[in-house]
C-alpha cells in the first residue's frame, strides 16, 4: 500500500487521524452541512454523555499487515454489550466505510439530512444554501436510491440481529460476492452479549470503535477508487427464519482483494462470548452466510 503516490489520495485523508480525534472528543451542536467532519455519525453519538468510562486507546492495536494485503484491527470493550449494540457497530462501520472509500460523497447522515430533511437545520441562511448545494434531478434520484437501499439493508440487518447470533459481517466493494475488490469484515465472535442493564452503553462503544479506527489509520493509505457495487453479507443461523437475505450455502469468504478485519471482543471473562454460545447452541456448520438481495450502488456527483 505504501507505494501509492500522495496525489492519488482524496484530499485531506492523509493526516486526518489526530485532528479527527479532537473533533470527536468535543461534543458540539449541529454545524452547517458543508463543513461537517467525516465522522458526523459519531459526532451525533457524542452528544450523549458517556455513562461508562471506556479506557480508550489502551487496547487498540496498530494495524498489523498480514500476508496478502490483509489487515486486522482488534477492539476490546471492557464489558458485555447488547445485541442492538452489535447492530449499531455494524451499521456505523458500514456508513463509515462507504464514506471513506468514496462510495458516498458525504457522510450518510449528511446525505439523509440533504435529501430528506430529517435532521433539524439551524434556521436562517441554510434554506439558501441547501438550494445551492441541491444537485440536479437525476443525481438527486440516484442518491435517494442509494439511501433507500441502505435503509433497507439497515432495517433488515436489525431484524437479523434480533433473530439470530451474527458472528461475522462482510462488506464487499466491487466485483462479485466471491471476488470483491475490497473486503471489510466485522468479526463479533469475541463479543459477549447481555441485557441492557449489564451492558456497556452502546454510544460509548461506538466511540471506542471509531477511536481505534482512527488511531490505526486504516483508510488514509488507500488509493481513490471509482464508485462500485456494495454487497453486504451476514452470517447467521440456518433456521433463523429471515427471508429478506438470500442464503448462500456454498459461500466462502474470498481471499482475493484487499481485506480489513475488525475484531470486536469483550474483555470481561465472566459472561459467555458469542462463539461459545454458538458452539453450545449448535454445530458451526449451522451458521451460514446470507447475502443482502440489493447491491447498493456507490454514488458520486461526478460519476
Amino acid at each position, binding site marked *: 500500500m505504501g507505494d501509492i503516490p500522495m496525489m492519488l489520495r482524496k484530499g485531506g485523508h492523509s493526516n486526518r487521524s489526530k485532528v479527527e480525534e479532537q473533533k470527536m472528543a468535543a461534543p458540539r451542536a449541529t454545524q452547517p452541512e458543508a463543513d461537517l467532519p467525516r465522522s458526523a455519525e459519531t459526532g451525533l453519538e457524542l452528544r450523549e454523555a458517556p455513562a461508562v468510562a471506556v479506557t480508550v486507546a489502551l487496547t487498540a492495536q496498530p494495524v498489523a499487515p498480514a500476508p496478502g494485503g490483509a489487515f486486522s484491527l482488534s477492539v476490546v470493550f471492557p464489558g458485555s454489550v447488547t445485541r442492538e449494540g452489535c447492530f449499531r457497530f455494524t451499521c456505523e462501520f458500514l456508513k463509515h466505510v462507504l464514506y471513506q472509500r468514496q462510495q458516498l460523497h458525504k457522510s450518510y447522515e449528511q446525505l439523509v439530512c440533504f435529501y430528506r430533511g430529517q435532521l433539524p437545520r439551524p434556521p436562517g441562511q441554510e434554506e439558501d444554501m441547501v438550494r445551492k448545494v441541491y444537485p440536479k434531478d437525476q443525481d438527486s434520484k440516484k442518491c435517494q436510491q442509494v439511501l433507500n437501499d441502505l435503509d433497507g439493508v439497515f432495517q433488515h440487518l436489525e431484524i437479523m440481529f434480533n433473530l439470530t447470533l451474527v458472528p461475522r459481517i462482510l462488506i464487499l466493494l466491487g*466485483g462479485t460476492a466471491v471476488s470483491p475488490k475490497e473486503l471489510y469484515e466485522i468479526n463479533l465472535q469475541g463479543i459477549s452479549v447481555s441485557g441492557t442493564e449489564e451492558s456497556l452503553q452502546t454510544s460509548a462503544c461506538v466511540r471506542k470503535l471509531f477511536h481505534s479506527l482512527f488511531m490505526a489509520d486504516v483508510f488514509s493509505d488507500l488509493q481513490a477508487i471509482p464508485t462500485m457495487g456494495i454487497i453486504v453479507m451476514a452470517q447467521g443461523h440456518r433456521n433463523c427464519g429471515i427471508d429478506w437475505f*438470500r442464503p448462500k450455502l456454498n459461500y466462502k469468504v474470498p481471499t482475493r482483494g484487499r481485506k480489513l478485519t475488525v475484531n470486536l471482543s469483550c474483555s470481561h471473562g465472566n459472561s459467555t462470548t458469542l462463539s461459545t454460545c454458538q458452539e453450545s447452541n449448535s454445530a458451526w456448520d449451522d451458521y*451460514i452466510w446470507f447475502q443482502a438481495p440489493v447491491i447498493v450502488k456507490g454514488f458520486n456527483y461526478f460519476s
Partner: protein
Amino acid sequence: MDEAAGDLKLPLQNDCESLQIHVEVHQKTNSTAKKEDIKLSVLKLLNRHSVIFGDYKWIEFDDCFLTNNVQSIAVVDTELQLKERQPISLNKCRLLIHIFHLNEEGPSTENLDAEDEDIVAANHWLLPAVEFHCLWESLIYDAEIKSDLLNYVTTTLLFSDRNVNNNLISWNRVILLHGPPGTGKTSLCRAMAQKLTIRLSHRYRYGQLIEINSHSLFSKWFSESGKLVTKMFQKIQELIDDKDVLVFVLIDEVESLTAARSAFQAGTEPSDAIRVVNAVLTQIDQIKRYPNVVILTTSNITEKIDIAFVDRADIKQYIGPPSPAAVFKIYHSCLEELMKCQIIYPRQQLLTLHELEMIGYLENDVSKLSLLLKDISRKSEGLSGRILRKLPFLAHALHIQSPSVTMTTFLQALSLAVDKQFEERAKLSDCA
C-alpha cells in the same frame, strides 16, 4: 473421478444397469435446508417413481419438506445417453443428484483501467446464474455435440486429477465453436458453463463465467494492447488460484483477438495487433496448467483465425443450421410454451417426430397438426436457430394480432412467416 470416467464409456453400452442418470434439484432461493436432507427426500421421491420415459421434471410435491425447499426436480439429459426413447428404471440406474441454488445478482463488470471506467473489459457471471437457467434445454442440435462437449470436459478433469503429464499427453483446455451466425454458439458456451457447474457442484463451490469483451483489449496507445491482454489474463489467474472455483473464460468472436498473423506480412496491419495475438497465445499456454479452467471461444470466420490458435483448440466443433428434425423440436418447444401461456388455446396434443414415425406418418385427427408442423419444419431448413426462435413471435405479430388463437390458425401463420423469411432473404441477396 471414476464416476466421470464411466461417463466416457456410455455411448458403447445401452443397458440400464450401468446407466448414470443425472438428477438436477433446483433449491429455492430462500431455502436454507442442508444438502444431505434434500438429497434424502429426493431419493425417497425417486423411489416411488421407479420407471420414467426420457427426461422428466417434478414441480409439485406431496412431501412438505420438498415443497418448502425445492423448486423443481428434473431428470435430465437422458437423450444424450440413450439413442432410443426407452423406459428407464430408476432403481437400477446410478443416480447422480446435483443440488443447486441459482444466483440472481446478474453480471458484474471488470475494468482494466482505473481511469477508463466506461470501458468494460469483461463480464463476470456467478454460476449457476438465473439468466442461463433452462438455456441448455432450449439448445437443440442433431449430432452428439452436447454430449461430446460434456465428455470433453469430463476427460480434461479426469486427466488433471490423475496428474497425467502434460508434456507427454497434451491438452490445452480450449474449445472453439465455429459456424454461421445465429446457430447458438455463444449460448451453447454459456449453457455448458452452467451445466458443468451444476454437474460438478460436488467438487467446486461455484462456477465463474468470464465473458471477455475482445475489442476493449485494444488500447488507443501503440504497443499497449498486448499489455492489456496480459493484464486481463492476470485477473483471470487470480480467480483460478482459488481451487474451489471452476472458471470458464468465454472469448466471443475470437478472430478479433487472434487474427491470422500471416495476413500482417502484407504490411497493412499494425504490428500492435500481432502483439495481441502473441499475448493471447502465450497466456493460454500459461493458463492450461491449472486444472480448474476451461477456455471457450466462438467464431464466425474461421479462416481469419491464426493457425497457432486453431492448433491449440482441442475441440473445433462446427455448429451449423439445424436439420429439419431439430427444427421440428424447436418449433415444438415454442408451441408448447405458447400453449402454456394460453396464446394458443385450446391446448392440443402435438406428437413428437419419434411418435410420428411409430404411426408411419399416417394422417388422422391426432397426427394432423403434427404432420403440418413437420411440413413447415422441412420448409424452414436453412434458417438459423436464432431466426427459428423468433418466427413464432413474427407469425403472431404479422398474421394474428389476437390474444388467443387456435393451433390450426397459428400453424398457418407460422407457415406464412417462414415464406416471408425466405422472400426477405432472396431480396437481400438480390440487392447484394
